[in-house]
């Protein structure tokens, strides 16, 4: 942007909808009781001190990951969306609907080309030409392809975006085990279906609130991804199993196990391994970061870990030939 060029000209050159931007500046100037001529000045001043733009795409998802983000204690979602980020496209939270929402996405892409953060929740269906999920008449894959081009960083939030999740779980009666051809962001990148960008996987169904916001905060502070493991997960959060962090591990080591969900041993906080806890095979931060303002985590309340941050955790009991389930994915038989 040259010194002679006004911000609105700059935006126009980048393909931003000038009309909607100026209309907003005019309305804002009026609300601030500024003279009408101040709208242009306002527009020019808006060019400085930009917060990083975030575009959040939701595909085959349940909105649990967004809900989880709103439960984050540090930083809070208010601080993120008002003070630290510019959340320019997010179906659940944004004011605009329809074509105006799509315009907001295009505006944000054009104004921040090469520097915005793309967050994806939900998997991307690839079967049947992508008709399993469309937004504004466009397939999820097409929207992802277009939006990832100008992204500096991609964060796949939740097990669906990171590993395929529930939509990719086995449907043993359907013609294909993964009916909709649901794919993770990483799978599409590795297959060359979308361009390659720095990708952080933040799995969990949903991820721990503070793990989502902490990953974003790390990027804000250092301008880069934290150290990642071979599944592209941030090592600070996914470096150890939940079992290694679980306060019940002393009972585990002493061979003290609960045999029923409400027996005396369960009441005294004994280890839940025999009731199906998947803590030893699950990498996540639940016992350390804990959920909902440090309140609890599954094993602390009394149900074993489901293993929800691991790929294919829904299909643990699927027969190797894929023909059916051999038992429960979560509950072994512990009767004497």
């Amino acid at each position: 942007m040259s010194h002679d060029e006004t911000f609105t000209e700059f935006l126009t050159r980048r393909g931003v909808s000038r009309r909607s931007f100026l209309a907003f500046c005019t309305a804002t100037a009026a609300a601030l009781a500024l003279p009408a001529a101040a709208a242009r000045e306002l527009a020019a001043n808006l060019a400085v001190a930009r917060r990083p733009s975030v575009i959040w795409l939701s595909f085959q998802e349940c909105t649990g990951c967004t809900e989880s983000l709103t439960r984050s204690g540090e930083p809070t979602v208010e601080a993120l969306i008002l003070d630290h980020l510019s959340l320019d496209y997010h179906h659940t939270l944004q004011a605009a609907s329809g074509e105006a929402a799509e315009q907001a996405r295009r505006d944000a892409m054009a104004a921040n080309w090469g520097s915005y953060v793309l967050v994806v929740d939900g998997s991307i269906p690839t079967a049947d030409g992508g008709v399993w999920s469309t937004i504004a008449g466009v397939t999820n894959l097409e929207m992802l392809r277009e939006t990832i081009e100008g992204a500096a960083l991609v964060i796949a939030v939740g097990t669906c975006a990171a590993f395929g999740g529930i939509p990719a779980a086995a449907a043993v009666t359907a013609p294909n085990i993964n009916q909709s051809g649901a794919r993770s962001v990483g799978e599409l990148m590795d297959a060359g279906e979308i361009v390659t960008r720095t990708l952080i996987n933040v799995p969990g169904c949903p991820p721990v609130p503070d793990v989502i916001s902490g990953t974003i905060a790390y990027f804000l502070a250092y301008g880069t991804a934290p150290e990642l493991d071979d599944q592209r997960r941030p090592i600070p959060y996914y470096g150890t199993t939940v079992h290694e962090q679980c306060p019940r591990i002393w009972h585990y080591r002493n061979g003290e196990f609960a045999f029923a969900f409400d027996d005396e041993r369960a009441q005294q906080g004994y280890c839940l391994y025999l009731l199906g806890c998947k803590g030893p095979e699950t990498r996540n931060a639940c016992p350390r970061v804990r959920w909902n303002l440090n309140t609890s985590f599954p094993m602390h309340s009394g149900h074993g870990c489901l293993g929800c941050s691991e790929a294919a955790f829904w299909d643990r009991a699927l027969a190797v030939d894929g023909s059916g389930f051999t038992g429960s994915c979560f509950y072994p038989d512990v009767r004497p």
Partner: protein
Amino acid sequence: MSTIVVDPVTRIEGHLRIEAETENGIISRAASTGTMLRGIENVLIGRDPRDAWAVAQRICGVCTLVHGIASVRAVENALAYPIPPNAELIRNLMISAQFVHDHVMHFYHLHAMDWVDVVSALSADPQAAADLQQCLSPWPNSSASYFSDVKQRLSGFIGSGQLGIFANGYWGHPEYKLPPELNLIAFAHYLEALDWQRKVARLHALFGGKNPHPNFIVGGAPCALGGTAGATAVDDQGLALVGEIITDMRRFVDEVYIPDTLAIARYYKDWAQRGEGVGNFMTYGEFPDPLSGADEMGRLFIPRGVILNRDLSTIHPVDLSDETQIQEYVSHSWYNYSGGQDQPLHPYAGETRPNYTGPQPPYDNLAMDQAYSWLKSPRWKGKPMEVGPLARVLMLYASGHETTQTLVNETLTELKLPLSALYSTLGRVAARTLETKLIGDQMAVWYDQLLGNLQSGDSRTHNDELFYPDTWPSSAQGAGYTEAPRGALAHWIVIQDRRIANYQAVVPSTWNAGPRDAQGQEGPYEAALKGHRIHDPQQPLEILRTIHSFDPCLACAVHLMDLDGGSQIRVTVS
């Protein structure tokens, strides 16, 4: 005739699209489309029924526990599997906490921007806002300096030029009627509600280990009570925190949510005359009292039933297992039925066979006369039903629940509106607020019952008598009911050889947002949009108001299309 398309409809859960035909600016016909399918019912087939709750719960992360509840109840219903009273009370507390949490978030974070002009708040006088807040309620955040700070935060944000989530809103639309001070108060409460919801979600974390997606279990509740301090999350200190959270919930509802609803409603009384829908209402009921000696139906706090054509004098009984009552059509849906498209199926015999026949993406319009949605069309005895807060409040009112009658009558008197005002967009908003109070207040009762049980030495939370599949009959089927914040929800399960042979979920937004049936009868969204005058087709705020009043749980779209000159105008919804 013109057609308006809105896709994506935002500030909802999921993917919804709306197309509305207008004549002289008035909607004459609308189509509601769910544009995303995951096929979770098919994923469930073949699995162990005890695993179903965890998979089914992921149908929705917003009303995050309702599918888990419906699922465990379906299995328990199939197996005639009783659960301990404490488990019932813990479930009641978790479901009711979901109602209070979800309704407040819907009001402030999903629906408010249809009524509240955020930009107008910039011209509010903080002192006048403080005076107004002090008249509204005793809520402590009411000083001029508080509102001055909030205003400064907002103007700093908007002044940065990066409008983030507020970009391209319909700010300045003439349908926004609130004075700047009330807009500022509502924005302040938007932020306060974000903070509040984070704290009250801890109730789910205590009993279920986390929120969203707390844990459940067939046969009871997966949180052992009665251990020594620190042994589990629900030790004495954890249980005391539950009590504090309930108090915080009720206070926010009484001092913020109710006063704001009434204050805002006063400026939008014209919305008490539009947006009704189909005039039929259905509930499955909720909150069984485990200590009551009444029969299954008699012990429900919210009764089960159907109200037809606004007739509050008769409540028709609903039977989830009667194959002639609840049925789903796919005449206008992208599915195949093996017995023919126009033959409805009861959920026990339900089928989920995707058969997309819509246009190949990218597309501009769907064909309203053919199949146009991933949603099916559920019907009760062939009739479309509205489900949700309005249905529940009407059911409580019609069944003679005195507290409800008093609350409804006082609210209508205060707003100077007749009873018929309930059958509207505004009525739906008000019903949601009123039931939040009814259910929030009831939480204290269930909490006391739980503590009383524990004190009398009953700490059972799980019945494992029927937990292992070798104790089951070789085949069984059952229906699990619940009331989700958005309305009546049930899951139907067929179990054969200890595995799931069929599984169907008929969800509230399918009742409300589903397409036409074989007879061409519209669903509630479609019926409710008819007759709306759209002030500016470029900014169809009116469509969003009525659609959001249902609190959709899917992603939507609305398009405007000019059929007069044969040309089609794609309208910007901004």
